[in-house]
């Protein structure tokens, strides 16, 4: 079985939090439980202050097993407003990542 994961192009992530709510809705998580989180990353450069966001999966991410089995995209992938999350096998994602600045692959399980 090839290992699956998410390619997150965090350079495009606007911090809109849609992925987090998509995940909570999909799994009916409550009490702050969630499969993906998004942090603000502020860094001060020589010329200006940079604002970026960093989405990352948690231990509760099951890559939307039920949805993907039915041929659907994971809830966060479908709803990401910046379309910056891709689902696939780690091998496929690595090829995509080769051309993407500031990106990461999460293979939660």
């Amino acid at each position, binding site marked *: 079985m090839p290992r699956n994961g998410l390619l997150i192009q965090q350079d495009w992530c606007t911090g809109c939090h849609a992925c987090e709510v998509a995940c909570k*809705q999909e799994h009916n998580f409550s009490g702050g439980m969630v499969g993906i989180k998004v942090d603000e990353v502020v860094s001060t450069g020589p010329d*200006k202050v940079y604002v970026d966001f960093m989405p990352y999966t948690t231990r509760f991410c099951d890559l939307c097993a039920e949805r993907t089995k039915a041929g659907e995209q994971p809830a966060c992938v479908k709803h990401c407003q910046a379309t910056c999350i891709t689902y696939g096998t780690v091998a496929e994602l690595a090829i995509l990542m080769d051309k993407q600045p500031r990106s990461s692959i999460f293979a939660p399980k």
Partner: protein
Amino acid sequence: MAKSKENKVLSTLWSAGCGSHGGCGCEIYVQDGKVARVEGDKNHPFNQGRLCAKGLAISQYMYHPDRVLYPLKRTGERGEGKWQRITWDEAYDTIEKRLKDIRAKHGAESVIFCQGTGRDIGGPITFLMYAYGSPNWVQVGLAGHACYTPRLGAMFATQGHYSVLDASQMLEKRYDSPEWTPPKYIIIWAQNPAAGCHDGFFGHWIIDCMKRGSKLITIDPRSTWFSTRSEVHLQNRPGTDGAIALGMLNVIINEGIYDKVFVEKWCYGFDELKERVQEYTPEKVEEISWVPKELLIKAARLFAKNKPSAIQWGEPVDAMPAGSVVAQAINHLWAITGNIDNPGGNVIARNSHGVTTYPFSSAELTKLYGADLVKKLNEKRIGANDYPMIKNFRGWVQPDVLIDQLETDKPYPIKGAWIQTSNIIGGQAADPRRHYNAMKKLDFIVCVDLFQNPTSMALADIFLPACTICEKESFRSWWQPLGVSVKAVEGVGEAKSDWEINLDLAKRLATTPIKYNTVRELIDDRLKDGNTNFEKLKAKGCWEYPPEGHNTRPYYRYEKGLLRADGKPGFETPTGKVELYSKKYEEWGLDPLPYYEEPKESSVATPELAKKYPLILTTGRRSPVFFHSEHRMIPWLRELDPFPMCEINDKTAEELGIGNGDWVYIENTHGKIKMKAKVTPTAHPKVVTAPHGWWLPETDGKAPNLFSTWEHNINNLTSMGNQGKSGFGGTDYRSGLCRVFKINGGKE
């Protein structure tokens, strides 16, 4: 989840639930008569499968334990929080009797019809109001009507129609449309588009354009995700946007980098504008706005020399007394560069198929009710006689004039209020205390809403429970496409749709018979201008774009005679051109050319006051997970933004001894409110930004606490009565003065 048993219903979002302005297409999954979840519709061109956080939390909103599910009547004093469940019949009977009594004794105009944000609600409210006979449709407390209306009014005067950034949203094939091209540069002017769908524009369309090559120029006092990715960031002093626009016009005109062919053929008053902008040299603008002149010049050149380019603007443009003037100047930027109704420019946006949700403009009203009624209504409409622009642009009341009238009973007393999904005290109104005091003495108040909130708790005599978008039939017409909302489930509890409630009551209150038996008949009647009906649109997946050649479809309609009522080429203005010198402003007694006006309170206008309150307070910072004062009770959303947080610069905070996460007071001449401090270098050292609409639904709702609205609502620090000369534009929402200090060592 046994998802196989779910039934999928397609619909359009534009009402309570996600709440905001956009028209996302959605899939509503229904199981056993309940909404199990809401997802984006991949086939809908508006959002292409995506939804924002608020849309994805709709099911939690619908089935929230605090939602009001039955009509209520107040049994104690106003604000005591004593309610009794009643039937719809009893509620309707009471409302009918009380409103008819008021009309008989004081005239229909003494009842105001109060709206909150713009979504599918304007239609139902005005429909009921005109049936009752009142002219007073109002966004109570929205000082200077500062939310899009000043910008709309300025565009209406200048170019006859409205424009928005062209992200291909006017075409069904979207980014694949062969006639579309992305803007080369996008100026993001005072907005965080990522926070939602402001003014009906899905914010992430900007990101879609960036992926297709658009570059950015950002005008914002804060450092943001967008400024990070911008070639130029103009970090301005809040409230000086007018000077920046005039300075850019100065550079573009004096360097001769405007579109000479377009200006020659399609603009009126260029020489007068040229003369006016001479005052606004980059040096002078730097002095006013803090923006280094090199950056201003660079931004002006990039914008003018790279066609097509477009401007995406936000509410702060409206939120200064000269709002309608600032908007005019920004409009001129896209006009003289020829970026109007061109692909990738500021495309003219008209309501799809010519359908409107209900007549709002004088012209449309006249068509429906006759000139006599419109004339009669305008005589009594609050503010219409003080401000020609208010009178001649849409049917609204001027809110700053209203609050005076509420207090003085002059020229006539206000006796009743119909408040429909509007949280006046907890969100919409500037100086909410003043509105609370003025409104609690009214004889009769109805609130139609989904949750108790500071306004309904403080004021309602009768509370009517309204539906979310998933529980009702409605329709959407705001730019493109034309859409319908499909009822996926019955109203939760006994909730009814706004259209249904208002049609029921219009039948009881109307002075001439209402021609519709059902909401469906009304909707189909409105849709008939578009040669379609509810069922046809539903069968198509809930949306439709107008056919080729239709005057609500782009591009270059001014060349084709598709903008003017007389069918001639040109723009729908007195001169048929884009009026850089506005004949309408002149007719309305206003300066026909743009100018800069200093905020009423600032280090320049009131240096003594600025010594006491040395920081600039900008309110209304958007959160991506809330819409205005809504959603604070929704766990999935509140978890993401749990506290009212003001942003303060790290060095400024250090000087003030404020640490990240400390509770602070923000104080000015109006009083003080509490927020947590987010200490960050993204804030300008002299500017504090605060979100609006904060109340705590988990705290005591009864007066005086009213869900902690007096403690946390930033509008308590803003004022009424600062409207501009046109009546559109105001107040100190974005450029007030304040000081900030730590509470109790930072603990609450």
